[in-house]
């Protein structure tokens, strides 16, 4: 039965190359995936999705009209050799819907907020207004902007993988670890 369940579970994700993200009908970047053949009940899936979003600390979670929506952000860090620090954050909107034995979810409306160092040498948002990821950056910043899109794609892919795994994993009770017996040095 488990084999049949796994065999029937297929997903189609619109994922392109490492640096390319798909766009929707609005021309906005999107990570979109449909998962077929799920055997879990719709209520169960919805509850698990909400629990996942709570664990991920995603904000503005709303559940209405068969759709769950939420808002979140990915932190972008620049790492080169031993240097690493936050360089910005990418905001996104999350959508989740269930239909019959399949569900779909997508992340879209990506927008970027650059970080800068403040007077205490901490990295903070340089602005409160985010820039849509679809913005043309111009030649001078094209390379850096392309890397932001690439990293966003990777983070969205990782988010999706975590989400699907969470929804598909059966609930297991926490196994209490056995206490190790104390070693007696008195008798041997």
């Amino acid at each position, binding site marked *: 039965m488990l084999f049949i369940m796994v065999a029937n579970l297929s997903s189609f994700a619109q994922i392109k190359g490492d640096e390319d993200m798909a766009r929707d009908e609005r021309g906005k970047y999107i990570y979109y995936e449909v998962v077929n053949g799920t055997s879990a009940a719709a209520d169960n899936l919805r509850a698990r999705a909400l629990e996942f979003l709570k664990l991920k*600390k995603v904000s503005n979670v709303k559940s209405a009209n068969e759709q769950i929506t939420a808002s979140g952000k990915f932190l972008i860090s*620049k790492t080169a050799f031993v240097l690493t620090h936050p360089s910005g954050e990418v905001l996104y909107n999350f959508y989740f819907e269930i239909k019959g034995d399949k569900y779909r979810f997508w992340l879209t409306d990506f927008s970027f907020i650059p970080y*800068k160092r403040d*007077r205490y*040498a901490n990295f903070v948002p340089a602005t409160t207004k985010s*820039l849509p990821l679809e913005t043309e950056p111009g030649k*001078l910043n094209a390379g850096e902007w392309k*890397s932001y899109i690439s*990293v966003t794609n990777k983070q969205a892919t990782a988010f999706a993988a975590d989400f699907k795994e969470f929804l598909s994993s059966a609930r297991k009770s926490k196994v209490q670890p056995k206490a190790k017996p104390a070693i007696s040095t008195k008798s041997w």
Partner: protein
Amino acid sequence: MKLKSFFTISAISMSAATYAQESTSSTSSPLQISGSADTYYKYDFAKKQNIGTSFANDQNSVSLGMIDLALKKTTGKASFVGELSFGPRGQAGSIPNGDGDELNADNSFHIQNLYASYAFTDKLSMTAGYMGTFVGYEVIAPTGNFNYSTSYLFTSGPFQNAGIKANYVFSPKVAVMVGLFNDWNVYKDENGVSHFGAQLTVSPAEGWTAYLNVLTGKSAGAPGTGSIFDLTTAYQVTEKVKIGLNAADYTISDDNGGYSGAALYLQNAFTTSFSLGLRGEYFKSKSDTNGLTLAGVTPGESVVAITVSGNVKAGGLTFIPEVRFDNASSPQFLKNNLDPTKSASQFSLAAVYAF
């Protein structure tokens, strides 16, 4: 190494971006290393070193700003920050030599920030050490300012406040800081920890943040108690337009001078690569019996400074072309023939790299 090769290598190494897990809870983070480097050219049209605000003071010379390195590490609820700086801007221009001990009189400790923090809860944290000042709009690091030259308010105010402070976040819109501090700009306080400081942070609307600051105390050797009241606020009107305001009043008791002033900042980002900014400032040195001459402004006199700066960004590199016009109420500047004059103007071009 040639400058072009340096920047090429830096650009290649910095172009690799990796993601980090988003987390709002206290966890260990890898050691963060960041910094900046800057250089500039300035030309005063009277061919004199006229405008006396901080940094960018060399006339008709390709000169150094500073190289600055900051380390930050968080483990659980504790974190530390250490920031070192080297160069004219990062040493004599912004931090004291030594700790007042004669043996260290020619020693720069190179320290801009050195402090530890502990987050007791999500709302309450405490920080102690040597920190950049919480007062004012502009900062020492060139990456933190839109304009390359600085305002009279910045030059006349505190640069660092060593001490211990507590921060409490009531809500995303309101936070408070209170603390006890050393005298301004010293590594060691000669007359004991004698300053009280506080900051109220409010965010009345999305994109708008205001800081109300107060710092008061009697510095070692000072003729009176000095108190500074400062308003620093910025409003991101749209994704392109930003407005900033800094207003401050500093008074030393018993008619020992002080200053007051205000600076308005207007910035427009025409593209992601190019922005233009205008700074208009009015600054006055108080006309007390024992008034102070601050950045060339004598007691009872004032100056109006208009600065127009561009920011051309290419990755981590920012070019800042700038023109500035200062007009004083008294002839505090010099013409080329050494005659006193009330006005001065200068052009500068700076290159600032943030990594």
